[in-house]
């Protein structure tokens, strides 16, 4: 049961990253890729009907974590107090700037809202990446299962690290570049004309940066937490996950720059697969630890220690499968209804 719930939570996190990832990426691109009001509108329209639904995945993941692993939820959320609060503020700022931009014709304020939307999106991707890196690196857990991290200490991963150190910053950069690229691929599908072409072209430099950062982060992860490899050596066939990372990375490039005819949908799906393998690889490197302790491995929060009782989980599994099947149904339905290009000119949806 623990094994199942570990992966169910992982699936929800992947769902969140893959879905909200592209609208965050569109947000980052909003800072520099779009050139005029019509393009700004088109790029926003491409995420219009779906972004708040995408954020629901975060809520659902949070709730699932809460009841399946109460100890982890309690410990991690209070320990990562400061960065989480900053994430919440950024989510508020981002949602509201979009909302205001939608409803008000605000002249000079429009520019401010566009910038706010872009910057909040960029910072969110960095925080998400850094958060994941924090979980991989480990936190100074006490014997009672709690910890508290300041935003930074000496910028080095060690016994008493901060939220930000050189390793977690690499994680933040990986997320920033990966999701920006993800958003650019989304735009190549959802908008047309010059904007789509520029989105397609910007994927190339982003791809080079992402390839480099991916390799650096893999090496850095092994350096910071060598135990990450244990599961892989124990079950060598799981090396398929890092191989999948590299293969999907290659596929993005291949399909996006295919000389005869670019394949934007396939490239975007490859990017989804890349995000999936990166996260799955990190989860598998941790399993069955949920939150490693930088203090002593005896303080690790493990699956066994954090998991809820059997009845809770059994009942949960029943409604979860039912509810998520419904949810996936709505998501597919909505995306199919809003299929097609959000044109640069007025119209579209």
């Amino acid at each position: 049961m623990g094994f199942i719930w570990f992966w169910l939570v992982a699936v929800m996190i992947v769902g969140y990253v893959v879905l909200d990832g592209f609208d965050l990426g569109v947000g980052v691109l909003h800072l520099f890729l779009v050139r005029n009001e019509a393009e700004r509108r088109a790029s926003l329209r491409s995420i219009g009907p779906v972004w708040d639904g995408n954020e629901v995945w975060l809520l659902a993941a949070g709730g699932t974590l809460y009841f399946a692993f109460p100890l982890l939820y309690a410990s991690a959320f209070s320990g990562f107090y400061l960065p989480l609060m900053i994430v919440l503020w950024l989510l508020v700022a981002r949602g509201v700037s979009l909302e205001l931009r939608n409803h008000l014709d605000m002249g000079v304020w429009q520019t401010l809202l566009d910038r706010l939307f872009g910057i909040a999106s960029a910072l969110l991707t960095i925080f998400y990446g850094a958060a994941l890196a924090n979980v991989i690196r480990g936190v100074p857990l006490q014997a009672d299962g709690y910890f508290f991290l300041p935003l930074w200490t000496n910028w080095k991963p060690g016994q008493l690290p901060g939220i930000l150190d050189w390793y977690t910053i690499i994680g933040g950069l990986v997320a920033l570049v990966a999701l920006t690229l993800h958003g650019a691929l989304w735009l190549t599908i959802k908008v047309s004309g010059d904007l789509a072409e520029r989105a397609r072209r910007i994927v190339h430099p982003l791809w080079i940066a992402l390839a480099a950062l991916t390799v650096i982060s893999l090496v850095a992860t092994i350096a910071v937490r060598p135990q990450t490899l244990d599961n892989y050596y124990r079950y060598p066939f799981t090396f398929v996950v890092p191989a999948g990372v590299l293969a999907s990375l290659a596929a993005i490039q291949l399909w996006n720059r295919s000389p005869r005819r670019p394949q934007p949908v396939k490239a975007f799906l490859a990017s989804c697969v890349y995000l999936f393998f990166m996260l799955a690889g990190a989860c598998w490197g941790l399993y069955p630890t949920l939150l490693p302790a930088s203090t002593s491995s005896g303080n690790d929060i493990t699956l066994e220690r954090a998991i809820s009782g059997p009845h809770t989980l059994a009942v949960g599994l029943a409604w979860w499968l039912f509810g998520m099947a419904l949810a996936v149904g709505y998501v597919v339905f909505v995306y199919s209804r809003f299929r097609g290009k959000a044109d640069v000119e007025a119209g579209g949806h």
Partner: protein
Amino acid sequence: MTAELIHRLHFAFTVTFHYLFPQLTMGLGLLIVAIKTVALRNGSAAWDRAAQFWGRIFGINFVFGVVTGIPMEFQFGTNWAQFARVSGGVIGQPLAMEGVFSFFLESAFLGLFLYGGSRLSKRMHWFSAVMVWLGSWISGFFIIVTDAWMQHPVAYDLVNGHYEVASFWQLLMNPWGLLQYIHNMTGATVTGCFVMAAVGAFYLLEGRNQEFGRIFLKVGVIAGLIASILIIFPTGDLHGKYVARHQPAAMAAMEGVFKTEPGAGIVLIGQPNEDTGKIDNPIVINNVLSFLIYGTTSATVTGLDRIPHDQWPTALPLLYYSYHIMAGLGTWFALLMIVSAFLLWRGRLYRVRWVQWALLLSFPLPYIANTAGWMTAELGRQPWLIYGLMRTSEGFSSTVSAANGLFTLLGFMGLYALLGLLFTVLMYREITHGLDAQPAAEPVHTDGL
């Protein structure tokens, strides 16, 4: 300031602000379905447009509800870690179900409802309105189940120092939760009705959008009459009786009953004095409280004198005032709606300006009443976090210092002050221009709007 107080204020402030938005969407969701049904039946373009107008208002409120709601889901862990750890096996369940069953539904169909007008058949469009309404009410249900377990814990086992669900069905069917749910949803409907009626009155008073003004007034007043009566009887009455039996300390403090006595009177006005154990300058109607709770004027109502001092609600005067404000406003809602409905029946509501003024000026009051009602429930639960099982002082995050808590509380206060201003601007614009013949610009659909 102690860390406990900061964490309490943190949750109280953010949840109070948050609930300003869902109470309107839950109320409006129902009214939009009603309007949309009329439109579907008589094929009226005006009613269809009216539904679309309120859909946009719903959408703005939904987005503000989402962005202020995410912090709520997080705060159980960030600020109340010890509570989350102990209770996650029980109330983590309904909280997760809210996300899985309600938010996906609500966000997906709201996108369809607002964007899909041209892409969907009329019937499908009506169906998406129904699903949006359902999503919002399902969401309310799971939140109430969560709160009801803290108010009146049922169906749990204590395993190694934390609580696990013993019976999932009983958790969902907690009698406290069912009573609170019908009372709360009626309260949300009251808010929706008053806001709708106020916008209608505003249009008629200004002499613009008169056709819509009349539709809004009619729907707001008819539904408002029903909701304003249901909020008192039976929902408020039943809920109050249940509280009196299961949380006597809360009831005694709410009503300002210091002394246990048969034939207890109801205090209409007066300030509870904790030092003297009396109500200052009281206006009391004899025997009424006993009758309201137990159905007989001679029944004995437990007073605070029978309750150990360490189990008195910690913010007693605030609890007392919250309850009295809620009940007082509830009376006003019923009176105003009865008068308005009478005039509507006599065909005079669209001409009698003073009633239109009263309806317009009353729109903030249901927000106050709903907030006061929630304060009554949550302050009445004190000093317990889980009633009878865990004290509030045992539940907060011990690793998050008062200074860190204050830092983020101030941050939220600043952010939400700004948010409140922006929201007001948005709503004002939507109300003043939302029905203009030619919208100023084709809006960019960015958010399910």
